[in-house]
């Protein structure tokens, strides 16, 4: 398929780089075996060694923390369930770890499964909590979840899209409109939507999708980022173009960062060393990781009949087991090579698609720790600087939220909220002031009246 021209408006705004290094547990049987279980559903967890699991998770977390010192713009976590596919089944719990261990880098939780929560209010609470702990650095993806996750976790695929859509609406309202308010929906009924705490900053949301017009419309309407999960370059560009046009129809020019997708990268000293060193790990991904039969990936009702026709029509059964490294490189499913090759590859991606944010995936978890650290280090020293002529990460000039010192706290905190009060000697008195002798803690005489509650 020809690659259409990108309709992104040319911009000087530097491309933002999120980076991830996932924590798959690769010590499981080869997926091509006859009685193979699904790594997304029923691979027995008897294969799990807690020591190896710790290693995988710590490698992911430490690598993510290191991204800040290297100068990336976001440390990205993905959520996986029910198998060795990934080590973080709660991306928000993992995000709180990163919030504690980092200062400036965006924390990208991409993302919690809306439909795995009993209500989006639970999700809203976790988001608000971690955004506060991170001082306003949380970015949240809102994926539908893989079809396999509907099998694995028992969520109903036939109601998935509708429930997710209502959940998104309620989530946004809960995090942006004052409560308490009621919600009388088809899937959620709440008497008191009243989330405390509220986030520290206006959360950036990302909607991962195959590019259905309905999803693109939602992303455009709410000013979310659209993360394409397609792999064919021409179709990718096509959906970004559609998305950007939908934003324009909504009355605004989309921020380039609103268009994004995952690019797998491996950089080494030369093209040949990169292929030699990491080639097998990429083939492993495709032969083991991205293999699923269509009944698993598309449980009934999960996707529209029209989409399903397209999926079944186009070679869903293509043998991933025969894939080679050259296939992966030729299809541009990964950029593997020297710093020059990777830089050129990324520039081409950005130019062809018009994305303003790249999600770099350094490893699904298959690369040994030494290899991962080597490639991340090389990338940070020899590729990233090509995109940062000023020599500083974007967070240096992005707005800051929260406070860093007691001084800043005192300056920024609201003065119009009620003081914690008790009744003493016929007066409403400020509890904190009463702690200090000689200070007049009286607020006003108590007449048994009710002060007006802020609406």
């Amino acid at each position, binding site marked *: 398929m020809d690659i259409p021209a990108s309709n992104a408006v040319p911009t000087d705004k530097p491309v933002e780089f999120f980076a991830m290094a996932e924590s798959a547990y690769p010590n499981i049987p080869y997926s091509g075996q006859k009685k193979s279980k699904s790594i997304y*559903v029923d691979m027995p967890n008897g294969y799990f060694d807690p020591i190896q699991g710790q290693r995988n998770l710590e490698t992911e977390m430490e690598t993510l923390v290191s991204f800040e010192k290297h100068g990336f713009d976001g440390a990205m976590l993905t959520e996986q369930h029910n198998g060795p596919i990934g080590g973080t089944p709660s991306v928000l719990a993992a995000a709180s770890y990163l919030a504690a261990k980092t200062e400036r880098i965006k924390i990208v939780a991409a993302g919690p499964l809306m439909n795995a929560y009993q209500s989006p209010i639970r999700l809203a609470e976790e988001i608000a909590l971690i955004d506060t702990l991170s001082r306003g650095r949380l970015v949240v993806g809102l994926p539908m979840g893989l079809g396999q996750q509907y*099998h694995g976790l*028992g*969520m*109903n*695929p*036939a*109601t998935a899209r509708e429930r997710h859509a209502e959940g998104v609406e309620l989530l946004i309202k809960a995090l942006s409109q004052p409560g308490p308010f009621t919600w009388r929906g088809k899937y959620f009924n709440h008497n008191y939507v009243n989330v405390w705490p509220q986030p520290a900053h206006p959360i950036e949301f990302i909607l991962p999708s195959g590019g259905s017009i309905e999803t693109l419309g939602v992303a455009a309407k709410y000013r979310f980022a659209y993360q394409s999960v397609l792999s064919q370059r021409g179709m990718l560009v096509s959906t970004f173009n559609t998305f950007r046009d939908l934003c324009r129809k909504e009355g605004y020019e989309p921020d380039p960062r609103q268009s994004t997708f995952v690019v797998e990268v491996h950089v080494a000293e030369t093209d040949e060393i990169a292929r030699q060193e990491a080639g097998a790990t990429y083939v492993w991904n495709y032969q083991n990781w991205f293999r699923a*039969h*269509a*009944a*698993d990936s*598309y*449980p*009934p*009702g999960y996707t529209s*009949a029209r989409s*399903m*026709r397209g999926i*079944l*029509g186009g070679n869903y059964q293509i043998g991933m087991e025969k894939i080679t490294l050259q296939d992966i490189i030729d299809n541009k499913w990964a950029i593997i090579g020297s710093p020059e090759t990777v830089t050129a590859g990324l520039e081409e991606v950005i130019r062809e698609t018009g994305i303003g944010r790249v999600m770099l995936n350094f490893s699904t978890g298959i690369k040994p720790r030494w290899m991962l650290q080597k490639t991340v280090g090389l990338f940070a020293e020899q590729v990233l600087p090509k995109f940062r002529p000023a020599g500083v990460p974007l967070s240096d000039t992005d707005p800051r939220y929260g406070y860093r010192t007691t001084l800043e706290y005192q300056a920024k905190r609201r003065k119009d909220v009620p003081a914690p009060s008790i009744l003493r000697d016929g007066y409403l008195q400020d509890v904190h002031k009463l702690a200090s002798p000689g200070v007049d803690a009286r607020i006003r005489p108590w007449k048994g009246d009710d002060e007006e509650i802020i609406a």
Partner: protein
Amino acid sequence: MPDEKFADRSWPYWTVPSTVDIEGVTTAYRRKGQGETAIYLHGEKGTRAWLPLHEALAETFDVIAPEHPGYGDTERHPDQSDFVDLVLHYDAFLRALDVERPHLIGTSLGAWIAVNLAIHFPGRFASITLITPHGVRIVDDEFIDMFRFPYEEEAAALFNDREDRVAGELEQEGGVEDILTGIAENATAALLYWNPRYDIKLDRRLQRVSIPSLVIAAEDDRIVGNRQAARYAELLPNSSYLEIPGPDGAPSSHGVIFEQPHEIAQAITRFTAASTPTHVA
């Protein structure tokens, strides 16, 4: 219009259905035969056809075979999500066709719907036959996930590896189109029983079904397992249990209504004759 939609259909056992509007849903059904009325409620497979089983039953009964909302040529109700929706639909359907005291016959999901009808309307049906039913809760059964069969393996499980003998009969538009039809119908099933895969309240509610009941099981059911039918028979207060012997000594399959329709029809005919006080020929 229905006639246009049906014009190009020529697959085995295809017949043009009748339709009736039920609360805004155009409901497709087929009717043939003489004698006492029997409502045949289909399972997850076997729509858009007047099958050999229907034909065999029509020798003894006035058979009405509707297609459930969300199956075959009957669209779903706009807010359809549970068994009560189907109970109400079939209540209206039976009133629209002015049917009195029919026998109920249901296969697989159709059996689950049938018991719900009998539970809600204890005096309305003359008898109930459940063929390879599922829907009761069995705690320690080996789990067969009927929503996870790879498309190419489903027929083998349905027919105990004898699918070559019958698969041609079940092929409709063929290839991808049949898979898509199956997926759409499975979405209706998913709304009903994705989670949980059983109705825990059947444990107590089945006692309301005091009419004569027959539970027909396959000898080796690789879709719903081999405990469902027996458990239904246990919970129904007035039940008989029958396993249909398979073809050529091999165990019968979940697809027994396709493989052995005459044995099924005979068993039901014997049962209704023996258990209902007046049998009008």
